[in-house]
């Protein structure tokens, strides 16, 4: 499992929550360069990712993520631990 494959898994979740069927994420995608990714969408994204990937984010670590690349790295780490 590498960063790129996790990002491809994230694509449909983001497309669904942000209602953008054509959206393709990259490592550098973040709240300021993805349309509609506001604090509200962020909580929905987190909940959807947790549900679909069967992981749980700690409240404190959500703020430390700067972009989709870092989110993917954290998901890899969490999957390895579980």
């Amino acid at each position, binding site marked *: 499992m590498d960063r790129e494959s996790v990002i491809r898994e994230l694509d449909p979740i983001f497309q669904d929550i942000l209602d953008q069927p054509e959206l393709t994420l990259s490592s550098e995608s973040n709240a300021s360069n993805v349309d509609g990714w506001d*604090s*509200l*969408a962020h*909580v929905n994204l*987190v909940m959807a990712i947790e549900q679909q990937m069967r992981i749980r984010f700690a*409240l*404190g670590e*959500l*703020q430390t993520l700067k972009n989709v690349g870092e989110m993917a790295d954290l998901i890899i780490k969490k999957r390895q631990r579980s």
Partner: protein
Amino acid sequence: MLLNSFLYLFLFLPVVALGYYYLGRAKATRFAQAFLLAVSLAFYAYAKPEYLPVLVGSILFNCWVAHRICRQPLPGPRKAWLYAALTINVLLLAAFKYSGPLLGHIGQAVGLGIDLGHLEFPLGISFFTLTQVMFLVDCYQGFAQPVSLFDHATSVAFFPCISSGPITRIAELQPQLHQELPGEDRARQACHGLFLLALGLTKKVVLADTLAQIVNVGWGSVGHLSCIEAWTFSFAYTFQMYFDFSGYTDMAMGSAWLLGIQIPKNFNAPYLATSISEFWQRWHMSLTHFITNYLYTPILRSFGKATLATSAVATILAMTIAGVWHGSAWTYVIWGVMHGVALAVNQIWKRRKLKMSRGLGWLLTFLWVNATLVVFRAPSVTSALDMLKAMLPSANLADLTTLLTAKPPSVTLSLTAVAVGIAIVFLTKTPSWARAQALKLNFLSVVATSSLLLLSFLYLNSTSAKTFVYFAF
């Protein structure tokens, strides 16, 4: 001990900075840390030694619980330990901050007609409680690991942050207690810290304290103000609050840098924000981080799905809790609700993709923040309403009688300094800490730091040190 006192500036801080540096350099980092813990506890006990057991008790309890939580293999007991500890922390805070007024209200309601008094609460209790609540949640969720009692105590009691923040994660501070910066980096950071300390001290004693004298006159005559006076006094408090709190934070951060330690940033040009959500990303940033991650997100998650409606409820609830955290007065509750409602409206506005020019956005944000600070500063809800009413155009539009009695001593110098300070707030996006970080160490920076310190000492010498606004929380 006040950060803006001669005792702190000429004795405590130099002795601590030199002691910590030389013990660290002698490869005695554990001694250096023990020294830091001892002086932090002495700093805390200086004003009211009787409250030291509250801080020590809170540290011992929370450190012990953090270890208990992480040792529990089963999720049920882990959760039980967390919830019990959170309840005890909230009860401790409530006992000191809210029990007096609450019992007073109950006494009135049941017709006892007696004043049940008001407990004076320990300095910094709101801040060291939040720091440790955050740590317990992080430990429970596996985001942080419990540390030794020595490290826990040194991080929580760290003197630059203990009285009014910034709210600092134990996990951020603790590793820095064991690191050794190369001598050159340490010296550079200390010089930047000294400049930041000078900037903060100037903001506090030259600007905030001058404005405080004007503001106090205004609030002393709140029922008799003209429209122009009411606006002037309200703006004066808006700037007093910024210079006071950001000045304190600069001094705290500068003091920490003198020891080679980084703490979170708390302000980033908040009065240039063009929306209320941007304002909260720039104002008291360490509290915003706590509200967003440890209040708003779990409340919203508990609803199951984040919609505009549930988000609005979560926002208003989280900001109301933030208001109550400041104190038991209704004015703080209303202040929190006002910010919560504005944030909810802002979110709906953005979701509907409605447009507003940046200029109008800035103006509305600034005026709303100004109105919320009227409520925040008011001694009662009635006074707040009186002040807000006086700000509406009325027959008494431009009488300046009260304003003219609010002249600070050495009017020209003080008001020129305040005018320059306010101009800097509006004309520069660079916050003090970024300015200090980018400082080139040369003759000019020495002159700038010395001049700011000298000017501040002159002001300090002419008046007794005034406490920081946020020491009341």
